[in-house]
């Protein structure tokens, strides 16, 4: 695959910036650790080995993450199998809606379920199983989206060849699922790590998990090195999981070659599977409806929502500017990294680092950044550090959909390197860049784990304000703020999907 890169020096500089931003916080933490060890402070190392209470916490976190990943994947694959057969009509809109819901941060789901359980009073709104259920609801859209992505990547002709020989259920078992396995296993690994690293939902439902310990340790001691050592078991687990799923993620990201305009075959499954799919679909419908209805019901009138938004005007404005800046600044380094990932040589090393960077705990990013003198824009660096890898993968997806011949034609006919890059290659990547920018904007707006540690005194982001309020329960005020946030997420997400799926036609129309 030809590289869409600008001149080499710029490309290398951008790669360097990418690495510095993404791994800078960890590098700062490790430098601090080595300094402490050089000063003879070896007793610190005992923090890296979980014992006693911390071992129990780690076991709690592992079992919760495992249960969340397995259950989300089971339901996600069933829902994806159902929606995969409908690329038009209601199924198409449902597919879009589910993908949009990926952007809703976990604590908004937490608020919705808190409110529902509080009203129903059928069970206490706390504990392991409630935490599991809410995490399942929060990660289900991602499980469905990535499973759909895996199923979509299976060439229809391979399915048809199977259908000619065997019943559809066997074609599913022996051809479709094995071919979609890279995406499905990558998603399972990713969900496991996301759940393992998240402390927002368990903490809101009174469950102590290991990720919260890192944040708590930092809050108690103000020592980032102690936070790093406490986070070491999570980092080690992330490296192990990534070593297993990295190949799958790479394979899934590089095999997006669905021929345009071909619907997948309408497979006929046995009744028991249809029943399971419909049950899973019911769960996803609950997943969609509960946050929407619960937030609207809790927020009260439109006037009270507006009042909540007005009260949080400073936080909204501050979050908005930080997130937009992150969304814009991510583009160039992410673009360079996406191009690098297609390289058969150096790409191998970058793949491991990019995937690892996706799951570095937010609290460790925050702890590392505190060691760097950046000031009021520190949250922007935190957002970039956390979401640049995601932006690179989105741009890579677009890069894989671009016909290499178009790039080769521009290389032959371009008057100079710059005009070829500016007039042909950049517009071809346009929708991918747009989607990456929007995604970083959305995720930055909802980011909590690092933001809560790096926000400078006198400032606050919307996410932190909501999280702080949530500890006092699901009030109308916090519901109003969540509703505002959800509206921004869903609106931006819809715009992003519209432009990405239009293949950039909307951007071109706008330019005319």
């Amino acid at each position, binding site marked *: 695959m030809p590289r869409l890169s600008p001149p080499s020096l710029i490309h290398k500089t951008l790669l360097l910036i990418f690495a510095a931003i993404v791994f800078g916080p960890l590098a700062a933490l490790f430098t601090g650790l080595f300094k402490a060890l050089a000063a003879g402070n070896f007793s610190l190392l005992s923090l890296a080995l979980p014992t006693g209470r911390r071992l129990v916490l780690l076991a709690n976190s592992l079992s919760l993450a495992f249960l969340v990943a397995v259950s989300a994947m089971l339901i996600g694959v069933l829902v994806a199998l159902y929606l995969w057969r409908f690329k038009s009509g209601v199924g198409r809109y449902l597919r879009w809606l589910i993908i949009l819901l990926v952007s809703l941060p976990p604590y908004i789901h937490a608020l919705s379920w808190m409110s529902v359980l509080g009203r129903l009073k059928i069970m206490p709104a706390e504990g392991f199983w409630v935490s599991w259920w809410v995490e399942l609801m929060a990660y289900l859209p991602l499980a469905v989206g990535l499973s759909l992505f895996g199923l979509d990547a299976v*060439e229809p*002709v*391979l399915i*048809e*060849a*199977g*259908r*000619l*020989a*065997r*019943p*559809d259920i066997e074609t599913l078992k*022996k*051809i479709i699922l*094995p*071919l979609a396995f890279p995406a499905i296993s990558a998603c399972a690994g990713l969900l496991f790590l996301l759940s393992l690293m998240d402390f927002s939902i368990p903490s809101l439902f009174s469950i102590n998990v290991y990720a919260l310990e890192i944040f708590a340790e930092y809050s108690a001691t103000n020592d980032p090195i102690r936070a790093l050592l406490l986070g070491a078991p999570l980092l080690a687990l992330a490296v192990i999981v990534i070593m297993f799923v990295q190949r799958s993620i790479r394979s899934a990201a590089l095999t997006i070659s669905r021929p345009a*305009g071909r619907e997948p*075959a309408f497979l*006929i499954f046995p009744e028991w599977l249809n029943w399971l799919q419909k049950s899973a679909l019911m769960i996803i419908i609950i997943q969609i409806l509960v946050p929407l209805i619960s937030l609207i019901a809790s927020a009260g009138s439109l006037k009270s929502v507006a009042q909540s938004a007005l009260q949080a005007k400073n936080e909204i404005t501050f979050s908005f500017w930080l997130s937009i800046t992150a969304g814009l600044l991510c583009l160039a380094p992410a673009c360079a990294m996406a191009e690098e990932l297609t390289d058969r040589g150096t790409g191998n090393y970058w793949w491991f680092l990019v995937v690892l960077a996706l799951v570095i705990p937010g609290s460790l990013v925050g702890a590392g950044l505190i060691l760097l003198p950046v000031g009021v824009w520190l949250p922007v660096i935190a957002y970039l550090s956390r979401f640049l890898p995601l932006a690179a993968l989105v741009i890579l997806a677009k890069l894989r959909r671009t016909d290499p011949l178009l790039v080769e034609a521009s290389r032959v006919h371009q008057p100079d390197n710059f005009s070829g890059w500016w007039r042909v290659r950049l517009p071809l990547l346009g929708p991918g860049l747009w989607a990456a920018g929007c995604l970083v904007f959305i995720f930055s707006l909802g980011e909590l784990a690092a933001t809560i540690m790096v926000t400078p005194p006198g400032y606050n982001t919307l996410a932190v304000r909501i999280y702080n309020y949530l500890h006092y329960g699901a009030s109308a005020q916090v519901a109003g703020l969540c509703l505002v946030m959800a509206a921004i997420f869903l609106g931006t997400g819809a715009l992003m999907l519209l432009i990405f799926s239009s293949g950039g036609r909307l951007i071109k129309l706008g330019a005319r």
Partner: protein
Amino acid sequence: MIRVKNTSKSFGKVLAVDAVTFEIKEPGVSAIMGPSGCGKTTLLRLFAGLEVPDEGEIYFGEDLVSSKKGCLAPHLRNMGFVFQVPALWPHMTVAENILFSLSGVSTEEKKERLQLLLEKLDLAGLERRFPDEISGGQARRVALARSVIAKPKCLLMDEPLTNVDMDLKKRLLDFIKNEVAASTPYLIYVTHDIEEAKSISQNILFMDSGKIR
């Protein structure tokens, strides 16, 4: 006998097959010829049950197998299909790809049929390789072997020799004429090459703009 009665199929606003009616009464090889985009592939896909007709009916013998009300599942039609591309499953070896369509047969019989086909198609020794470990020409031959191993009643071939070099094309054409045609009651061969069509069959149907002329 294969009977197609007033069958139509469109994709959005494009009418790919337009009220086609014809019969293949006697077993043997039939060729369908026509320019690119005339609906040949769609017609084959309708035969195979991979598409549901918007109108009309398709019969194999006296059995109605396709109509807009419903279709017999593809695997129940006892058909083989050679696609324009090899379409080999990348996670299965050459042997697994070929044997996939064979069921209800003893292991001995499976081995025997596999060896015979591998030898006839110069694929011996490749059975444990994966599709990405064989050449494009070998992949074509594996696809051909996969489509005939179950001895289908009807074999559909959709431009199977497109983008194949002259030498391999000649060898495969000979194999299809001498071996496949002799053992398959109905063989429907789609091509846009008149010489290829003439060399494989005397019964040539011409298709243009979705209609059989």
